[in-house]
C-alpha cells in the first residue's frame, strides 16, 4: 500500500514538494486555505521556504522575484484573490518566468461565497491581466490529479517559461481520495537565464519593459509562437464512451465527476452518450473535440458558471454541430437527478 487518503488541496502541496518546489508565497482564502496550511506545516521539515504575504498582490510579486531566481515556486488562492494577482501574473508571463498558481474557484462575482463555481474560466484561460498573454491551465478532477497535475504544471512551466495554473474548485479541493505519490523528489537544474546572486548569472536581466513599439511587438510575437507550440503539444483530455456517442457531454473539474455518473446511468438506459473531459483547458483539446464532431451529432457543455468553457466548445466546433449549455451558479451544485433530466431531455430534443 503506497496510497494516502488525502484532501485534494493537500495532495497539491505534497505533489509540489516532490516536484522540487522549494518556495511558497501566499495569502489565506477559503476554500483554498488547506494549501497554505499544508505548505506552512511541511516547509520547515522539507527545507522549503514558506511566507505568508501581506496581500495577494505582494504574494504574486514574491513569486515573480523567486521565479526570477530560478527556484520552483508556487502560490495558491481562490477567485477574489486571483483577481488581485492578475497584475503580477501579467508581469510573470511577460518576463517569461515559470511558476505554478493554484486557483480553488469559489462563487462570485464580488465576495460571493465559498461554494464551488467554475466562473473563473474566462479570467484564467483567456489571459486575465493586461496584455497579449495566456497561461497553461490544467484542470484536475480528483485528488490524484491534484498531485499529478501540480507536478506536471512545474515541468510545463519550466519547459515553456510561463506561469501554469492548476484550476480547481472547492469540491475537488476539499474532497478526500486515495492518492499514490511518486517515490522521488525531482531535481531542479540551474537555469541559464535566472538570477542566482552570483558572478556567473549577474548579467541576466528579468524585465518586462520594451521601450520601442517594435521591440514590444517582437516580445509579443515570441509569446504567440510559444502559445502556438503549447497548443500543438499540450492538449490533454479524457473521454468516456465517446467513440459511438451521438451526444457528447463536455465538462471539466468537479462537473465532469457529476457528469460521469449521469452519463453512465443514461448509457444503461440505452442512450448513446459520452463524456469528453478537457484535462487542460488551455490549451483547449480542440483537435480531438473537432474530430468527435464527425461522429457525434450534438454537444452539451456542463459548467458551474454562466457558460464560459462553452465558448471554447463553440469555437472548436465552429457551427458544425449544435452546442447546448447547462450551468448552475452561486455555488449551487446540480443534483444527480437534475443532470440526468437535463441530459436526457436534450438528448431527446436532438436525437429522438
Amino acid at each position: 500500500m503506497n496510497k494516502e487518503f488525502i484532501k485534494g488541496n493537500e495532495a497539491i502541496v505534497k505533489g509540489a514538494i516532490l516536484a522540487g518546489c522549494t518556495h511558497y508565497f501566499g495569502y489565506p482564502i477559503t476554500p483554498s486555505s488547506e494549501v497554505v496550511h499544508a505548505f506552512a506545516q511541511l516547509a520547515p521539515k522539507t527545507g522549503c521556504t514558506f511566507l505568508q504575504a501581506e496581500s495577494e498582490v505582494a504574494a504574486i510579486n514574491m513569486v515573480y522575484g523567486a521565479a526570477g531566481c530560478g527556484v520552483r515556486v508556487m502560490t495558491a488562492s481562490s477567485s477574489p484573490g486571483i483577481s488581485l494577482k492578475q497584475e503580477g501574473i501579467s508581469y510573470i508571463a511577460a518576463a517569461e518566468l515559470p511558476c505554478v498558481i493554484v486557483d480553488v474557484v469559489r462563487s462570485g462575482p464580488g465576495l460571493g461565497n465559498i461554494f464551488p463555481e467554475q466562473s473563473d474560466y474566462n479570467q484564467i484561460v483567456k489571459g486575465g491581466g493586461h496584455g497579449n498573454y495566456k497561461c497553461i491551465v490544467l484542470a484536475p478532477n480528483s485528488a490524484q490529479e491534484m498531485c499529478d497535475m501540480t507536478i506536471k504544471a512545474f515541468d510545463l512551466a519550466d519547459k515553456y517559461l510561463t506561469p501554469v495554473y492548476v484550476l480547481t474548485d472547492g469540491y475537488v479541493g476539499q474532497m478526500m481520495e486515495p492518492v499514490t505519490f511518486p517515490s522521488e523528489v525531482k531535481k531542479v537544474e540551474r537555469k541559464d537565464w535566472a538570477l542566482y546572486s552570483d558572478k556567473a548569472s549577474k548579467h541576466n536581466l528579468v524585465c518586462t519593459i520594451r521601450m520601442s513599439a517594435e521591440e514590444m511587438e517582437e516580445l509579443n510575437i515570441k509569446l504567440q509562437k510559444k502559445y502556438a507550440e503549447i497548443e500543438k503539444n499540450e492538449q490533454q483530455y479524457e473521454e468516456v464512451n465517446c467513440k459511438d456517442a451521438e451526444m457528447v457531454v463536455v465538462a471539466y473539474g468537479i462537473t465532469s465527476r457529476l457528469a460521469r455518473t449521469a452519463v453512465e446511468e443514461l448509457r444503461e438506459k440505452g442512450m448513446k452518450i459520452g463524456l469528453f473531459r478537457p484535462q487542460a483547458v488551455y490549451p483547449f483539446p480542440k483537435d480531438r473535440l473537432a474530430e468527435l464532431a464527425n461522429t457525434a451529432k450534438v454537444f452539451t457543455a456542463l459548467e458551474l458558471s454562466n457558460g464560459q468553457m462553452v465558448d471554447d466548445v463553440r469555437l472548436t466546433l465552429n457551427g458544425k454541430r449544435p452546442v447546448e449549455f447547462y450551468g448552475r451558479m452561486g455555488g449551487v451544485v446540480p443534483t444527480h437527478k437534475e443532470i440526468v433530466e437535463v441530459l436526457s431531455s436534450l438528448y431527446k430534443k436532438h436525437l429522438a
Partner: protein
Amino acid sequence: MENLDNTIGKPQSFYDTFERKPGKDKQIVHYCPGCGHGRIHKLIAEALDSLEMADETVFVSPVGCSVFGYYYFDTGNIQAAHGRAPAVGTGVARANKKGYVISYQGDGDLAAIGTAEIIHAANRGENMTVIFVNNGIYGMTGGQMAPTSLEGQKTATSPYGRDIADMGAPIRMSEIIAKLDAPVYVERVSVSDFKNINKAKKAIHTALKAQKDRKGFTFVEVLSACPEGWKLSPVDAIKRLQDVMETYYPLGQYKNELETRPTKAEPLPRPSDKDIMTALGVGDKAAIINVTDTFVKNFKEQRVRISGFGGQGVLLAGTTLGNLAMHHELAVTWLPSYGPEMRGGTANCHVMINNSVVGTPVVDKPNVLIAMNGPSLDEFENTVEAGGTIFVNSSIVDKKVKRTDVKAVYVPMTNIAEDAGIKKAANMVAVAAYLSYSKAMDLNSLIDLLKVNFKKKELVDANIKVIHAAKEYVEKNCM
C-alpha cells in the same frame, strides 16, 4: 571602515558602457539635467565597489524615473511592477539566501501605490536595502502630485496647490519605517551639497554593509531635486531642496541598532530526499489489511451520508470510513459540508465507496444515513434510497424513522461511548455499528487500521473497547 574617497571616474559596479540603453549615447545616464538619480546611482555603485558586493547583488528597478536602473548597474537585475519592488525583493532574498538585494524606489512607488509592500518587507526585517528617492513629485508620468509633495505645491494633479485638508499631508516615510521593530538602520539624507552628499554616501555604505553582515532591513531616504517636475532651473531646484524639502523632511538617523542587532541565522542545508519523503509521509508501506479479489468484486456500492452536531466527530467518522475503504482497495471519496454550513452547528459529510470508479462524490441519495442528532434525521430521512438503512443515535434522538421502506437501526451511540470511557467516541460507535450491521467491510480491519494510525496505545485500547461495545449492542439488539 573602507575607503570612501574614491569618487573619481565610473565605479566598477556600473557597466563600462550602457549597452541596454537605447540610442547612440551609451556613456551617460538617461536622467534630466539637475536630477538626483544619477548621483544616487553613483553613490550606490561606489558602495558596492568598496564592499565588493556587486556580484552577489540583485538590483530591483521600480516603476518611475529609475525604471531603467538595469541600464547601469553591473549586478543581477530585475524590474518590478509599480510599488511591488519590496515584494519582488523579498522573493529574491528568500530564493537567494546568501545574496543581497537593493530595492530602489521613488516616492510614488514606495509611499503611494506600494505602501503595503514597503511596510511589510520592513516589518519582516527582510535582509535588503531600500533606497527611497524622495523628490516630492511624479517625474516619469509628467509631474503629478506625490504623497510627499509639499503643502501648496502645484503639480499637474494639484494645479491649485496641495491642500492638506483635502489631499492629506506629505508623508514622512523614514519616521514611519523607524517606528517598526524590525528595521535595523533608517536614515534620511539629501543630495543637495557636498557635505550632504558625503553623508548620503556614508549612509548608503552603512546600509549595504549592514546587509552584507546579515543584520536585516535597512532604509535610506534620499531627498533629491527634480528640476523638470518642479519647473525650476537646476540651481533653483537645489536651493528649494535645501530650503524647503530639508526643512519639512529633517535629515538624520532615525534608527541605528547596528551594534546591538544579532546577525541573521545562516540558512539550513536542504534535507536529503529521503528525509523529505519521510516528512511527507510518502512511499511504500506494508499493507494493513489483506483483501481478496472476490471481496472487491462483490462489493456493493455504499453511498453514505453522516450528519450531526459540530463536535460529534461526524467528519472524522467519514474519513475513518474512507481510509478503511482505501485499505480495502476500493474506490472512495469523502466530501465534507464546509464553511457557513458547519459554523451553523451541524456538520455532515458524503462518503462514496464502490469497486471501480467514483463519479460524483455528492451523495444526493444515500443508501446509508447515519443521523447523529435529531435535525440530521429530519433533514436527510427523505433522501434515503428505498431499501437503504438509517442508523439513529438514539441517545439523543427520541423520534423514530417515519419511512417504512427503509431499515432503521437505533443505537445509543453517545451512551455506548460514555460507558466505554471516551465521551467523544460516539462517532467511532457510529462507524462500528454501521460495519457490524451491514458487514460492508470487516470490523476487525477497522481495529487493525486504528493500531497503525493512532500513536498512543491507551487511545487504541480505548477505541477497541468502544468498537467491541458497539458490535455487541448491534448484535444483541438490532440484528
